[in-house]
């Protein structure tokens, strides 16, 4: 045909690699994001990461029951995972093995926990970044335990971090599972955080 349409897609961002459901960007509908300055793109992503972190860290601020975590992105979890890996492998004898182990446990572990929920017929979407952000308390605990060398303080910090992270994740997960299987889906989440907490404690 003769016309050349200028393709406009209200549902997808142009240039920043993030796919967000249309419900969350009503204010940006129709705007082409390729034209905006780079700083604005970065600031928007940073703000979004900050918002999610705040969401994870402050359970009381949660009015919308897990809605805020439905938009997914993988930058935050990647940064957290790298930070954790670096911190845990810094003083280790087998540094590369330690780092690799942290990476594998975090990413493969998250994947397996998600697949497990899917197979149990939970209503979960594969790219939930929830678990990625929920390790943030444990990352803080790892940082604190790196600074201090007193073993009892380490244990306390890790326990606090573990409880916090597990609490956030377990609530989120148990809402998505059918009634008679909640424990089956929640147990792997608990195991996942135990594994990470253990890694922090023995480093």
């Amino acid at each position, binding site marked *: 045909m003769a016309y050349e349409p200028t393709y406009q897609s209200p549902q997808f961002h142009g240039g920043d690699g993030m796919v967000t459901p*249309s*419900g969350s960007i009503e204010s940006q509908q129709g705007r082409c994001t390729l034209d905006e300055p780079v700083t604005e793109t970065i600031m928007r992503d940073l703000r979004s990461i900050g918002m999610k972190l705040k969401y994870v860290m402050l359970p009381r601020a949660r009015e919308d029951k897990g809605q805020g975590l439905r938009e997914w992105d993988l930058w935050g979890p990647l940064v957290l995972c790298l930070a954790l890996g670096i911190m845990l492998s810094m003083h280790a004898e*087998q540094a590369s*093995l*330690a780092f690799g182990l942290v990476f594998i446990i975090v990413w493969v572990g998250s994947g397996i926990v998600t697949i497990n929920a899917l197979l149990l017929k939970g209503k979960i979407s594969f790219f939930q970044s929830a678990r990625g952000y929920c390790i943030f308390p444990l990352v803080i605990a790892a940082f604190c335990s790196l600074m201090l060398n007193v073993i009892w303080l380490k244990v306390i910090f890790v326990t606090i971090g573990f409880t916090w992270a597990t609490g956030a994740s377990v609530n989120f997960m148990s809402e998505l599972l059918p009634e008679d299987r909640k*424990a089956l889906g929640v147990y792997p989440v608990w195991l996942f955080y135990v594994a990470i907490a253990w890694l922090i404690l023995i480093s």
Partner: protein
Amino acid sequence: MALPPNWERYTTEDGKEYFHNAALNKTQWERPSCDEVPLASLNTSDVFTYKPSAADLEVPRSTAKSQELDDLFMGVAASEPTELVSLKEGPGDELSSSGRSTNSALPKASLPTLQGAGGGLGFAAGFAAGAAAASAASGGDGQGSAPTFSSWLLLLAQSLFDVSTDDVVRRLKLLVPYPAQDRSTAEELRTRPDFYGPFWVATTAVLFLAATGNFARLIESPHPSLFKADYSLVPLAASLVYGGLIAVPILARVSVFFTDEEVANIDFKKIICVCGYGLAPSIPVSILCIIPVGFLRWLFVLGGLALSLYFIKGNLLEDISVKVRWLQLTLIAAPVILQVLVFFIYRVRFFAGDRD
């Protein structure tokens, strides 16, 4: 404001907007109103707003494609209205929507065919049911472009995880011999093996074996700050446990290949299931083995091994009735050797220098 399905908005060089419908091949200047939903096109909102009842399962394939998909995929979803509500949320989650459409997939009627099919690694019945369902999905429309293999796989995997918390707890209780054995659960384990138990018992075992090995070293080291964690215990435990769990059915399958025994006579799922649950005693044993007394550790390990073998004998070995003698021995020996190896290697390799 979202456009109705199949409508796209374009702009001319002068900046005027016009709308084009790809399905009807219609172009117009006016914005289409949202109630112009064409019947012939299939889109996600059509599928998910349909609320079937059990009677609809018997309805023969009608002309509307959405009806066809719903019969197969919503199954007895009448009892799960909440699932329908949540599915409307995320238009951006392509993967999840194709996953979820197969979530409540199999109507309950066909589940027994999957689970009752003791047939070997072929999973023949599951394949047939899953392929039928999945090919109808791809016959649907763009949404069905998610590969049929993965939807078939999802259906199959879901059937293997079709247990409730109570089921798993009861199966784990089978490991403890003292109160009388729960015959009904044992029967259930035979006819409806699950993979949730074996997989998560194995994973927990890997973590606990590696963790307790390291804790034991921590306790034994002269000073906590001198302790260097041995991370290599994790890959070791993982290869031992996961490798063994995979090797046993493969070994069984290969052995069957060399005889003319019917593959369908051997239930490989059950072998994996029982071997997996049989590893469960290693978890409490590993916790107890933190105690740094050499012979006590041997005691615990042997006790755990005994529990494990007792469980396997009760649930797996009695059913093996094959004609060829050496095959029978292999099928009996393989799970036993797995358990023995796990417990022994744990005891010997994971603890460095304990006091006797």
